[in-house]
């Protein structure tokens, strides 16, 4: 039976200055459907949804929901119209309780003559949390006491408790552990079963195909096509996203290449209270050493520990020449680079230019008698950014204007400009579209060939299998398994050591 049309988007348009973010996009979505929405970074998919949800005002065109034209000024209007969004970043507010976050902007049911009934609000919020199976989260407690994942779960409750007609999930799964993702998929299925609709945005094409009914593709702000998930493969989607055939070499294709015996970095009995428990390993020249595991297994702390960024680390991190790495300046001066998983907060300075981000660790090298030459810095940054094929207006452009993929390119450009020999990359392709991912994988392979050593920390098993020479699987802060690159190595082998 043909499903009833729920949402019609007619000629939706949006410009940000000279950037035409969404260009005359028209599509329809049915009720009781999970629609995937994919595209490269800068394709307009997030902007399209953010207009639907009231985060941005509509530049042109109309949304028609259930036959009614929508007039949305902000998220509350969108909520009232039956549209909710779960965002990629932190969507809850510190300084408020869990209940206050859930009902923020919708306190009216608990207001009597201007007086707020906090008890009733807490009670209702706790009921919701219990219904969702999140009873360990207490409604009356300040949200600051909960970690990122729990706060995301609260956000999910906030977005869905009003049973919106359309639920937009914007690249949320990258922030969740496996357990968290399972919860989210359950909710998506429940929404669909209820005859309501989910728009699911993700860069994980496998996930998109597994959990959606149909997939719409945007490219460069324009609508390309909508396909049935059951009838296409990931390669088909990639082709639609990019507009051409992606080369078969997405990941590395070489197997059996020996790794050098030369040890460049030794990590010996490193512990970080509550995170790492006596891990030891060696990194070889020209090796891509992968770290995998569940979200809280401690692998992300490995990167910080190696870079000297863990203030309470025990054990030793030593270079081949015996230099102990105990702080960040020593790490940088001894050619170690680090790209954090939390790119926007820990790797990049958003309110600064591309140029200043790239030259930052290299200023001493670029200075002449302690003086800096602006033109020299600009030339240097320009060269590094272009080497990475960064899509930008110029190195004077602020990083905050760039897409996630281009921000990551700026991070890599910085460290390559510094000439780092050891690169610690934590989730290097998180939130990045397939074309940029491919470029980063190619770069990693090239760096390996040039004798640089890479530690790649990733929650994406295909990425580990595809790129690493050796994979260390972590569990509960310890190394629980070690695998050498082999065409027969599969996801189940790694998962068995993770759980």
């Amino acid at each position, binding site marked *: 039976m043909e499903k009833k049309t729920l949402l019609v988007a007619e000629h939706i348009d949006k410009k940000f200055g000279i950037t035409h973010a969404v260009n005359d996009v028209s599509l329809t979505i049915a009720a009781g459907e999970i629609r995937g929405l994919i595209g490269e970074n800068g394709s307009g998919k997030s902007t399209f949804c953010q207009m639907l949800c*009231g*985060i941005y005002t509509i530049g042109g065109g109309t949304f028609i929901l259930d036959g009614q034209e929508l007039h949305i000024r*902000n*998220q*509350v*209007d969108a909520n009232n119209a039956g549209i909710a969004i779960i965002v990629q970043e*932190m*969507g809850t*507010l*510190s*300084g*408020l309780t869990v209940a*206050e976050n859930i009902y*923020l*902007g919708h*306190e009216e049911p608990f*207001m009597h003559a*201007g*007086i*707020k*009934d*906090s008890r009733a609000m807490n009670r209702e919020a706790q009921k919701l949390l219990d219904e969702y199976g999140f009873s360990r989260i207490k409604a009356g*407690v*300040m949200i*600051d*006491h909960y970690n990122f994942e729990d706060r995301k779960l609260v956000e999910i409750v906030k977005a869905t408790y009003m049973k919106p007609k359309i639920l937009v999930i914007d690249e949320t799964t990258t922030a969740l552990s496996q357990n968290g993702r399972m919860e989210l998929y359950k909710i998506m299925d429940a929404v669909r079963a209820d005859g309501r609709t989910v728009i699911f945005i993700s860069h994980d094409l496998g996930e998109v195909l597994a959990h959606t009914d149909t997939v719409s593709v945007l490219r460069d702000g324009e609508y390309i096509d909508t396909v049935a998930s059951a009838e296409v493969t990931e390669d088909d989607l990639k082709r639609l996203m990019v507009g051409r055939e992606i080369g078969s070499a997405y990941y590395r294709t070489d197997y059996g290449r020996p790794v050098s015996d030369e040890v460049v970095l030794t990590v010996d009995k490193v512990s970080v209270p509550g995170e790492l428990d006596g891990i030891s390993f060696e990194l070889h020249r020209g090796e891509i050493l992968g770290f995998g595991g569940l979200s809280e297994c401690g692998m992300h702390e490995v990167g910080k520990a190696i870079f000297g*960024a863990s*203030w*309470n680390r025990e054990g030793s991190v030593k270079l081949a020449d015996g230099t102990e790495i105990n702080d960040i300046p020593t790490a940088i001066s001894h050619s170690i680079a680090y790209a954090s998983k939390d790119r926007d907060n820990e790797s990049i300075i958003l309110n600064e230019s591309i140029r200043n981000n790239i030259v930052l660790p290299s200023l001493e090298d670029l200075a002449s008698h302690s003086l800096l030459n602006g033109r020299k810095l600009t030339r240097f940054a320009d060269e590094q950014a272009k080497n990475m094929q960064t899509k930008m207006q110029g190195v004077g452009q602020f990083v905050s204007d760039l897409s996630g993929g281009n921000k990551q390119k700026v991070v890599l450009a910085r460290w390559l400009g510094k000439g780092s020999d050891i690169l610690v990359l934590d989730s290097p392709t998180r939130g990045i579209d397939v074309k940029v991912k491919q470029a980063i994988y190619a770069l990693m392979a090239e760096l390996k060939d040039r004798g640089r050593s890479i530690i790649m920390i990733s929650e994406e098993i295909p990425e580990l299998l595809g790129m690493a020479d050796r994979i260390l699987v972590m569990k509960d802060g310890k190394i629980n398994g070690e695998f050498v690159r082999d065409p027969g190595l599969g996801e189940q082998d790694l998962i068995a050591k993770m759980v």
Partner: protein
Amino acid sequence: MSTRMQKLKGTKAYGYLMLAAMVLFFYAVFKILTPDNFGSPDRLYSYLQSSIIYSVGGCGLYFIVVMGLFDFAVGSNVVLSSIIGVILSRQFGYIGFVVGCLGCGLLIGTLIGTLYNQLNVPSMIVTVGLMLILECVAVIVAGGVKQTLAPELRFFSGAPGNIILAGLAFLLMYFILNYTKIGTYCNAIGSNEFTAKNMGINVKKYKLIGFMLLHFFVGIMAILTVSYGTTMTALTGMSTMSRNFQPLMGTFFGVAFKKYGMPITAIVVGEFIISMIFSGFVALGAPTTIQNVVTGAALLVIVALTARGGRGSVVK
């Protein structure tokens, strides 16, 4: 840390424990050093009374500090509102006094909030400018003459009047924070203004409300100040600036203890600790300069212990 302790940490009970520990600590230090002339019950009562004026101001400042704003016009408001209250009291008695102080405070808050919203410049700059203007207005209104509150209108100069009025102010703040949207929205705006706006919160409206509430509380502070001192002289030359800082110290305590859900208690106890330190040094016969050094250091230590970000966290 034991599991029980970890569970306790972050709860209101823990917050109360921390405050009590601080009070006990400072009390013990001075009681040991100078047992005969410090810390008897009637003296403690005296320390409390001299601190509650600033606690009231600290409560008012909380509304805007929590939103990341600042206000240097508090002192000039105290002066101007006091003067207007005293002038009106001559014709209308207590009603004129109270309405004059509160009304003037509210008007000033409305003016500051409106200017801030319209001019779109940092609050610090707006309020410094207003401070200079309000000081001059106070001189003009006072006619260059010291304003003295009539003896028969000094109910709020000491107990029980000052305790009652301050208590009402604290109750009002408790009500606003816990039973209206204002507290929630001020916290939301302070946490992430962009997200708050996206939640449909009228950010400008609530910033205006924040300033109005602050200066209303400063109006209450003016009643207590002029009743306490009996007179008020209008002064120019940014001399009112020094009145801004004592209530602000209490606000810092309030913000530090916000995560325990007890800002009002923290403000009152914080000001009491500062008053106790001041009196303790007087009891020791120490000069004012040492007192100020230690008060400042105590504030740094206390806020660092309660509000310090983890190592490696970003602090501005």
